[in-house]
């Protein structure tokens, strides 16, 4: 009986979430989201680009918490091609592409991979840099099965997300 090569079946070491995880099943529609912040977090976490671990960025600055899982799509990067899609950005923000994922059932954990189906997005400019937010739903979530576009998402959820992303000043 032949032995399987473990390196061909699984990673012996934890892959870097940005560089070592697949973009998704069939991108650009079905993608993986690596989650940095859950809807229950009063702290803003973000990936440490060197180690791949989550680190504390800062406490959320207002009482508004993210209404969706918040993270990024692995093996993406916001640079000149993303900036070229905007009218006002001179360059990308130099980070992986952000994604907000809605789940009907509460998911209270971060540092997880969520297979997601994209439905739209927000074109955002942060200090002259493109900082788009892709909006998605959990791919296997039957509650969102019929939500194919941003227009079909509840306006309540869309407004909550916009409120969270808007400046507080």
């Amino acid at each position, binding site marked *: 009986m032949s032995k399987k090569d473990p390196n061909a079946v699984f990673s012996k070491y934890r892959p870097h979430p940005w560089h070592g995880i697949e973009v998704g099943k069939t991108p650009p529609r079905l993608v993986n989201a690596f989650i940095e912040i859950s809807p229950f977090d009063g702290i*803003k976490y973000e990936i440490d680009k060197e180690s791949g671990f989550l680190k504390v960025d*800062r406490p959320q600055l207002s009482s508004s918490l993210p209404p969706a899982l918040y993270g990024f799509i692995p093996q*993406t990067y916001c*640079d000149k091609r993303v900036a070229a*899609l905007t009218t006002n950005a001179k360059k990308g923000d130099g980070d992986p592409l952000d994604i907000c994922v809605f789940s009907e059932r509460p998911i209270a954990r971060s540092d997880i991979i969520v297979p997601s189906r994209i439905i739209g997005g927000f*074109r955002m400019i942060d200090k002259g840099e493109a900082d788009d937010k*892709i909006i998605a739903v959990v791919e296997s979530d039957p509650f969102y099965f019929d939500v194919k576009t*941003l227009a079909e998402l509840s306006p309540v959820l869309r407004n909550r997300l916009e409120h969270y992303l808007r400046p507080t000043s």
Partner: protein
Amino acid sequence: MIHGAQPVEIEKTFEVDEAESVVEAAMEDYMDSFGG
């Protein structure tokens, strides 16, 4: 990642077709900078 301390502009919302274009552009930007 954003929000809170600095003014952030929401230029517009976009639907799924345009979102796919953004994902594709970000995948190409990744390939340009980090290879495959």
